[in-house]
């Protein structure tokens, strides 16, 4: 700020970001966060290495538009399942946010998880919060340069491994590893390893809380799902104030631990703020201090606006979790999960498209038959070769001319030209369109059968 004429102060609307060095914290919620870090990252880094039926268990083969998920092979036509997955994710976010605020942000979001990992690396190399702040303030010397280089080196190595794993879902990871060893990755593989690695390094190393504050749309619209019975991280003002030590003071000893541990650099004692990602680090920090000074835990705790205003007991507060909004979200969520499960269970691993030749309307064959031509796109979505039998029904004496069986390799599509004939006596079959139905069934595999409608034209 600079003084300007007229007693006014010039103020910049942009500022250089102040680096936040959150103090490491231990406790119940920190343990949960680390449990989720391990759970999500073990899944992320390990599953590409699993094998299934002689191929990668989780393989999103974008080039061939086949998506292998353990025993299932999804085709682009199965996009509905992706839609359902996204709906389930969205409803889960609504539900958990309505119950307990930004649970996702605080415990499971990749931004939080990777920041946690990067902070751990940072602490191992540069030391704790105080040491890091001293290091930042110190002039650049050999020790500082060495520590910074070591930290960024470790971050970049970890980020590149993350990028490599990410691409390993698309290119089989064992092949990709061979390509990396021989430096023969393709241009897009190289780009995505570097891009995803760069994003990890940049977001978890440099951007950190700025991603949540300035970029993330979820952070903003989650506020719309809060109500007065939503569990939020709350400072018990009544118990805490006035701050300080000694006679006549509240329980808050003003040690500022809650501010030091905050990854977004806010003071939770000012109440709920949009920067709060609900990580509960301040709860862990405050509880430790309360233990030391001999006050009961929970000066900062999960509570609700209503519980604070109306002085509800814990039991009364948790009972409010079963409010209509939460019950409705839960009901819809379970309905969709069950419907998706049943649909997956009953999914027939065979798809058929019937494409009628448009211009060649109908042709006369011999003296007394009419022929229509179709192309059948038969997609075998199992991983074994199948022989399919093709039948057609819907008109008297309708039949497929020529071969009625076709072999299709596993996980491939086959285009089969198909002539269908009807024996006509002119008086009985007038010109017009007639609905017919193709039935394609796998020989020797009961249940693998699909019906597809089309029309037969007589002229």
């Amino acid at each position, binding site marked *: *700020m600079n003084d300007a004429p007229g007693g006014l102060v*010039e*103020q*910049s*609307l942009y500022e250089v970001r102040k680096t936040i060095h959150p103090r490491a914290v231990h406790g119940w919620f920190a343990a949960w966060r680390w449990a989720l870090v391990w759970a999500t990252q073990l899944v992320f880094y390990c599953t590409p290495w699993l094998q299934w039926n002689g191929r990668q268990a989780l393989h999103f083969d974008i080039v061939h538009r086949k998506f292998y998920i353990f025993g299932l092979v999804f085709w682009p036509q199965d996009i509905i399942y992706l839609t359902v997955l996204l709906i389930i994710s969205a409803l889960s976010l609504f539900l958990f946010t309505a119950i307990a605020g930004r649970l996702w942000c605080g415990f499971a979001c990749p931004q939080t998880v990777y920041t946690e990992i990067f902070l751990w690396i940072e602490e191992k190399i540069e030391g704790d919060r105080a040491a890091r702040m001293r290091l930042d303030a110190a002039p650049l010397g050999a020790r500082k340069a060495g520590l910074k280089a070591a930290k960024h080196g470790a971050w970049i190595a970890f980020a590149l491994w993350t990028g490599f794993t990410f691409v390993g879902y698309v290119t089989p990871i064992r092949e990709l590893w061979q390509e990396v060893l021989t430096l023969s990755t393709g241009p897009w593989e190289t780009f995505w390893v570097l891009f995803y690695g760069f994003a990890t390094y940049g977001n978890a190393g440099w951007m950190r809380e700025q991603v949540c504050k300035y970029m993330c749309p979820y952070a903003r619209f989650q506020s719309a799902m809060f109500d007065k019975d939503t569990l939020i991280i709350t400072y018990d003002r009544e118990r805490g104030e006035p701050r300080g030590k000694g006679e006549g003071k509240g329980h808050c000893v003003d040690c500022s631990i809650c501010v030091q541990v905050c990854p977004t650099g806010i003071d939770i004692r000012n109440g709920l703020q949009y920067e709060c990602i609900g990580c509960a680090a301040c709860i862990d920090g405050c509880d430790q201090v309360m233990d030391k000074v001999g006050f009961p835990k929970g000066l900062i705790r999960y509570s609700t606006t209503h519980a604070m205003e109306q002085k509800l007991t814990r039991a009364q507060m948790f009972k409010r979790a079963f409010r209509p909004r939460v019950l409705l979200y839960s009901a819809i969520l379970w309905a969709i999960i069950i419907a998706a499960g049943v649909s997956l269970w009953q999914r027939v691993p065979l798809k058929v498209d019937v494409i009628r030749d448009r*211009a*060649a309307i109908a042709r*006369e064959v011999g003296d007394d038959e009419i022929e229509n*031509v179709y192309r059948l796109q038969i997609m075998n979505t199992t991983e074994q070769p199948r022989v399919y039998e093709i039948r057609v029904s819907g008109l008297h004496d309708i039949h497929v001319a020529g071969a009625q069986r076709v072999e299709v390799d596993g996980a491939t599509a086959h285009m089969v030209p198909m002539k269908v004939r009807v024996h006509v006596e002119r008086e009985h079959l007038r010109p017009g369109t007639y609905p017919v139905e193709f039935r394609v069934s796998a020989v020797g595999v009961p249940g693998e059968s699909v019906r597809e409608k089309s029309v037969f034209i007589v002229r």
Partner: protein
Amino acid sequence: MSQFTSSFWDFYIGVISVVSILACGVLLLAQSKRHVAGGQAETTGHTWDEDLGEYNNPLPRWWMWLFWITIVFSLVYLALYPGLGSYAGYWKWTQVGQLERENAQANAQFGPLYEKFAGQEVAQLAKSPAALAIGQKLFLNNCAQCHASDAAGSASFPNLTDIEWLWGGTPEAIKTSIAEGRLGIMPPWGTVLGEQGVKDAAHYVMSLSGMPADSIRVARGKELFAKTCIACHGPEGKGNPAMGAPNLTDNVWLHGRSESQIVQTIAKGRTDQMPAHKDLLSPSRIHLLTAYVYSLSQPQK
């Protein structure tokens, strides 16, 4: 911009674009600072819903740099690409140019696939499964719309799988049909022959391919045929591939076998056109298509 008759509009658009971009920069400079009375810097001073204040939370500095980057980007873009009125841009980029570049790329990539078959005889290619697989794809993309995906044709569109050919079934004739197209014209004879004459001729033609016909009309039709039809269809009705006149003695009827259809053909005439494909498909693609079509009428082993 050639649709504008006056160059005024070129300048109009160019000036507005540049001035708007520069104005964004001026706005950014003007709005990056403000002057407040000392001590009141905590909130912006805006109040909503009676008591809802807005904290002054400055954006990070790098955010402002993003704005400057977009301004620089837009100026660089306008220098390189067309956008300022009729100025073509440093790189002289056009949609047509890009299409041609991509076509050239695709031809360079896929051309060898076709070229490797270009040196072989059609009769040989017709026995090569690899060539036929490509030929079939070409056929489905370019020919199946009329000739049907099994190449057996439809009314007015010839069947390519039988041994009867309007214009000849040699590899050379097939290739000419695809590349140059064909125009087959049967002139209308209704006014010349009269209603009864047409019907007589139709019955004679039916008798040629062994269909049941009225013997009196056949006898009269035969005389009419000898006067009118033999010029193209030949004295025995065997047709003439040089002008696409069909053989009338086989049992192939391009426009339908019924008496009424044959009467219609004679009375009103027919005009059928096979479009030329030499401008649409490269010679090596036409070569493969020829092999595929040729293979369809070869006896199966």
